């Protein structure tokens, strides 16, 4: 069932097997390049474009439409425009931290994709502890945020960084605990095995057979995870680290030029990474009829992305105190309950 990871396929194709570690590394880099390009196309190009279009649709406006088909070229132009802007570094900024912060944010999000099985054998690696790995690298991002907030030497940035940390902290535990409840079903942390565990059929309604996706097996966990994920990626209603009306632009207040691009990009990759995790954990990964896996996978990610954008336009932002209360008093307790309940049910069935 488990498909061969992409580097192995490549190394087989290109005959790199004989070169030892160097060969493995080369194959890995090639595979990474493929996955990276694919994800960047999604996140850097299609993502911002879709976001603008969706927001415009919600507010009944016309969005980008000048350059390229349906205005998609605008995004490319924007990127070039931003890259050629002057980089203004605020006084007394904590230099190394100020420079590293955007790098951390963007890289950490990309790193998460290493273990996501995208179907058709597109998966960079499939280690035993894939799920733990993906949670781990995804939360490195908050380090980037707090670095940015602190290094900017600006009160608003600092508050934004603090808020980002508080929020990530509050929702990290529900997220991980809910993820753990999935692991109870799958019995493994390996991503491919989690996907494989969802391949059966839950029940059939006449001709339609509902797959055993964990979203259907445990919808409660799915909802919890979805909400926690929204907070993790910092989207509405949980976008208080940026909260332009409260603290300017939060941690990215003092960033311009390429650094701003990196932040912007990093956030988008994060949203997509969140979508990928949800797709893998709850939506059967690349599974789906007729179409190849990679397509289904992309569809699922985009579905999550659409939902995120819908939330951005439809749900008002919570206050910081509400955020903390929802996290610690609501989500955490619910996720504990979910975990225990899942364990009991699984135990009874088994």
């Amino acid at each position: 069932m488990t498909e061969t990871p992409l580097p192995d396929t490549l190394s087989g194709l290109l005959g790199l097997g004989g070169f030892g570690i160097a060969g493995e590394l080369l194959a890995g880099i090639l595979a990474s390049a493929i996955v990276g390009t694919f994800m960047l196309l999604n996140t850097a190009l299609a993502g911002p474009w879709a976001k603008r279009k969706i927001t415009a649709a919600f507010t009944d406006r016309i969005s980008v439409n000048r350059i390229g088909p349906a205005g998609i070229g605008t995004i490319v132009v924007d990127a070039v425009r931003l890259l050629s802007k002057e980089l203004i570094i605020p006084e007394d900024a904590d230099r190394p931290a100020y420079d590293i912060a955007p790098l951390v944010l963007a890289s950490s999000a990309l790193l998460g994709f290493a273990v996501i099985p995208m179907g058709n054998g597109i998966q960079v690696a499939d280690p035993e502890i894939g799920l733990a790995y993906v949670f781990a690298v995804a939360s490195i991002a908050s380090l980037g945020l707090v670095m940015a907030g602190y290094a900017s030497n600006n009160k608003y940035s600092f508050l934004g960084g603090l808020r980002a940390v508080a929020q990530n902290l509050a929702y990290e535990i529900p997220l991980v605990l809910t993820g753990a409840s999935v692991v109870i079903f799958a019995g493994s942390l390996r991503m491919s095995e989690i996907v494989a565990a969802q391949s059966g059929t839950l029940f059939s309604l006449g001709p339609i057979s509902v797959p055993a996706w964990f979203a259907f097996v445990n919808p409660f966990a799915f909802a919890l995870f979805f909400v926690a994920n929204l907070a993790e990626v910092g989207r509405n209603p949980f976008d208080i680290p940026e909260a332009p009306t409260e603290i300017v632009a939060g941690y990215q207040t003092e960033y311009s030029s390429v650094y701003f691009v990196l932040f912007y990009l990093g956030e988008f990759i994060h949203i997509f990474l969140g979508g990928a995790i949800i797709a893998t954990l709850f939506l059967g990964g690349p599974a789906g009829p007729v179409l190849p896996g990679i397509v289904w996978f992309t569809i699922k990610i985009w579905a999550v992305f659409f939902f995120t954008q819908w939330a951005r336009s439809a749900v008002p932002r919570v206050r910081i105190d509400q955020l903390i209360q929802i996290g610690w008093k609501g989500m955490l307790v619910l996720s504990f309950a979910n975990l225990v309940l899942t364990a009991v049910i699984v135990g009874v069935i088994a």
Partner: protein
Amino acid sequence: MSNPWIAIGALALVAVIIPVAMMVVSALLRPRVPELSKRATYESGEVPTGDTRIRFNIQYYMVALLFVVFDIETVLIFPWTVIYNDAVTEVGMMRALVPMLVFIGILVVGLGWAWRNGAVRWVRSPRAQRQKVER
């Protein structure tokens, strides 16, 4: 199968190279117009008052401490979830589940205590409290 971590290392390399490449491109493209006043930190156009070293709400700290404790507990929960299915068949549900229930129970007592003692109560306004009582 090859060592997955080499591939992950390769991806890490790529994940760093891409942003760095962007930075390099930008460094080649962008102008540089030094001017002192634009380096002032942004405070809605006013003269900045103070820097990043401000007194912030102690609750941030409380939340961080709570997190440290609870996050580490999830590390201990994960191995249990992985083997839970097998454990139930092997030693029965009682022995697989009850220890973890005890563990989570203790955590919940801790959470309840923190909750009641205001570790996660963000807004504390003595004045508002007073008014509430007076009315």
